[in-house]
């Protein structure tokens, strides 16, 4: 699929990828019986696939990992499923990717804040130009984290943060679960 896309342009085409825990947490399991073993097995398979993709010439592989940020933002303190485990799971995905001869960039994307977005955009531009020139840079594996999250402790998690700037406009939700939210006159039916 990446080769099919790359044939259409001279500019570098990235490949968007997923991390193992997003798959591992979403599937039913009749084999492993242990979510950690299941997820690490999938991560190993993904790592080999990403190496093959890089060997085929793919210049940029984007590995999205929202789970790290979601768990950190919500202050999840589960002894097994926690941000520390998410980082341990993420590392096998990019294992071996930081080689001098690879123009491989791995990006960890999370919830963005304006300043971080600009910085990340600048880094991305630089990486793109380097890839276009066929150049190689030290530390070609770039981990760009667009948010600074930490444990929220006992703070109430605001599930409506995406509606913060909506004003009086109703959200896309059909029905609000919060008694504080009022319906707008323009609410879609």
């Amino acid at each position, binding site marked *: *699929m*990446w*080769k*099919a*896309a790359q044939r*259409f*342009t001279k*500019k*570098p*085409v*990235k*490949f*968007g*990828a*997923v991390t193992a*825990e*997003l*798959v591992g*947490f*979403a*599937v*039913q*399991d*009749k*084999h*492993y019986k242990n979510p950690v*073993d*299941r997820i*690490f*097995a*999938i991560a*190993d*398979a*993904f790592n*080999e*696939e990403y190496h*093959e*993709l890089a060997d*085929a010439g793919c*210049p940029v592989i*984007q590995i*999205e990992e929202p*789970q790290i940020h*979601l*768990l950190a933002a*919500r202050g*999840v303190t589960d002894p097994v*499923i926690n941000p520390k485990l998410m980082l341990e799971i993420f590392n096998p995905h990019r294992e071996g990717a930081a080689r001098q001869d690879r123009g491989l960039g791995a990006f960890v994307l999370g919830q963005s804040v304006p300043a971080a977005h600009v910085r990340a955009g600048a880094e*991305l*531009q630089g990486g*793109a*130009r380097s*890839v*276009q020139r066929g150049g190689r840079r030290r530390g070609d594996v770039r981990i760009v984290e667009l948010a600074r999250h930490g444990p929220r402790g006992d703070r109430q998690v605001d*599930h409506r943060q995406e509606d913060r700037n909506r004003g009086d406009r109703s959200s896309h*939700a*059909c*029905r609000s*679960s*919060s008694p504080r939210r009022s319906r707008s006159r323009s609410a879609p039916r």
Partner: protein
Amino acid sequence: MTRKFREQYEDALTCYIRDQEIAGLDILTDGDCRFDDDVGGQSWAAYPPMHMAGFEHDNPRPTPVGRGGVAFPRGHILHDYMESRVMPTVIGRSAAAICNTPRCGRRRSASPRSR
């Protein structure tokens, strides 16, 4: 993406890639427009296990909400998204590599590091 959807995939790519070039983007993407028999249900999370060994592809099952420590309240769009996911079940000892590379069509044996 199976071979029978290659024409649609390339047609979509023609539009996506050209629009991104016109917009001036430096690194382009196919937008994850990977067609398959289940167009509405395929996504960047569902596509890999549906093309890996060790999964039961013919009988995808709904995903219980709250898995992985993440859940959203009813009415939240991500609650609806997570409720609607159907994913294949793990039935094998280890998952072989997915078919996204030029060697598509030849599934390798399980990774020596697989658990």
